[in-house]
């Protein structure tokens, strides 16, 4: 055949070839790490989602503690996964691999802010979230001072995208509350969601495109919650006077009762 074999007598110990061999290793190592991070990211997403489902199972004061305990243990497990991410990123530029695990972090933000809302009716801040993501690094010798902790930080964009999704869960919580006959939570939620909506309005289009894109869903969630409150209000207008009195006394009774317990 006409194959010019001698052409590929390219010296395999030539500088170029040796350089490319090292490139090969560098690129493969990078891709392998990326792939491991994608897998960790998927695990984080799935477990965070399951925690959110779990938290929706709070249906009364009765099972609240039990559910919250389970959620906390699930989120601890998620944080262990995030710690593995952090370990992969030791000495790396986090942003180089950010795309691999950012969906996971966003879902974690959604889960942990949802947990926090249920326990405290407040928005869990990004700094508090990040505080929970500093881990002790047992593998490093305790002498090297700055390496004592190992951590990964949720970026403001991850946080905002997680919070934007949180509003969808809060809307679900609101509709469920009405269904459960809980008349207070919807009004609390509408106030809270309006605050978040104001916050996102403040950010407007100054953030990245993904944030603006979620604004529509956020607005819809807010509108569903506002409509639910509206319905509660108009229907409340029909309560006969005598029942209203009963209601008030019943309410104060319960409040007292609560005080005794706490």
């Amino acid at each position, binding site marked *: 055949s006409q194959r010019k074999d001698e052409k590929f007598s390219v010296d395999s110990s030539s500088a170029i070839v040796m350089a490319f061999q090292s490139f090969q290793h560098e690129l493969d190592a990078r891709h392998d790490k990326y792939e491991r991070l994608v897998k960790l990211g998927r695990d984080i997403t799935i477990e965070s989602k399951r925690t959110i489902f779990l938290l929706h199972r709070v249906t009364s004061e009765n099972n609240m503690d039990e559910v919250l305990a389970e959620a906390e243990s699930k989120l601890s497990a998620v944080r262990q996964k995030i710690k593995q991410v952090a370990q992969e990123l030791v000495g790396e530029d986090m942003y180089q691999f950010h795309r691999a695990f950012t969906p996971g972090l966003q879902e974690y933000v959604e889960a942990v802010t949802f947990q926090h809302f249920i326990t405290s009716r407040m928005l869990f801040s990004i700094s508090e979230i990040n505080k929970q993501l500093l881990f002790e690094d047992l593998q490093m010798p305790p002498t090297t001072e700055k390496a004592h902790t190992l951590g990964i930080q949720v970026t403001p964009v991850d946080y905002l995208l997680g919070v934007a999704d949180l509003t969808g869960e809060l809307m679900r919580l609101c509709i469920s509350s009405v*269904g459960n006959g809980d008349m207070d939570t919807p009004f609390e939620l509408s106030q809270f969601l309006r605050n978040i909506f104001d916050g996102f309005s403040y950010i407007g289009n100054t953030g990245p495109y993904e944030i603006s894109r979620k604004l529509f869903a956020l607005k819809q969630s807010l509108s569903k919650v506002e409509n639910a409150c509206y319905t509660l209000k108009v*229907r409340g207008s*029909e309560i006969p006077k005598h029942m209203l009195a009963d209601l008030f006394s*019943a309410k104060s009774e319960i409040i007292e009762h609560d005080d005794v317990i706490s």
Partner: protein
Amino acid sequence: MSVIDMFVGLQTGLSADQDIREEIRKVVQSLEQTAREILILLQGVHQEAGIKDIPTKCVKAREHFNTVKVHLASLQMKFPSEQYYKYHEQWRFVLQRLVFLASFLVYLESETLVTREAVSQILGIEFEREKGFHLDIEDYLSGVLNLASELSRLAVNSVTAGDYTRPIRISTFINELDFGFRLLNLKNDSLRKRYDGLKYDVKKIEEVVYDLSIRGLMKDQPTLTAEK
């Protein structure tokens, strides 16, 4: 074997597959027709006249389900049983609808939730996947969610028809369903979306019960009177 011979062989496989799909499509059309007839029948209960005639409607619906059984028996003859999920998408929609209809029927008969076993029996199919043509769990759940929304509509129409106790019973039933669904971890798919709708059904029925309650139209109105 030459390349073209290989492709001829592959094409034969693809054609056979297409023929199977065509056959399935025809049976599914018949199933849809029967399902439409059952639906027309059962939806009569939303009318004031119909609500009083539930037992007769149920008997007629049971008869229609015999036709369904025949079609489903024919359906499973169309393809190798271990390839159920290969063709699943084709009958998925109609099967969910049949589950809904069967569960609606059972609810109207006995005010209970039809189990997955029971619905398989009504449809004349297997309960366990290993045994053959069965009912996928997500399709079962999807059908049940349709039941919830049908019942919330029924609650509204019951009140119009002057029946104030049925909404209360529906409320209890849907609450139990809701409690069940809360146990599930769903993916972000169509089932999740329908499940989100359940919350609105629960809300709607709560509103009906509330309306009855504040007007003293509930026989043994539990909530508010209890709190007195």
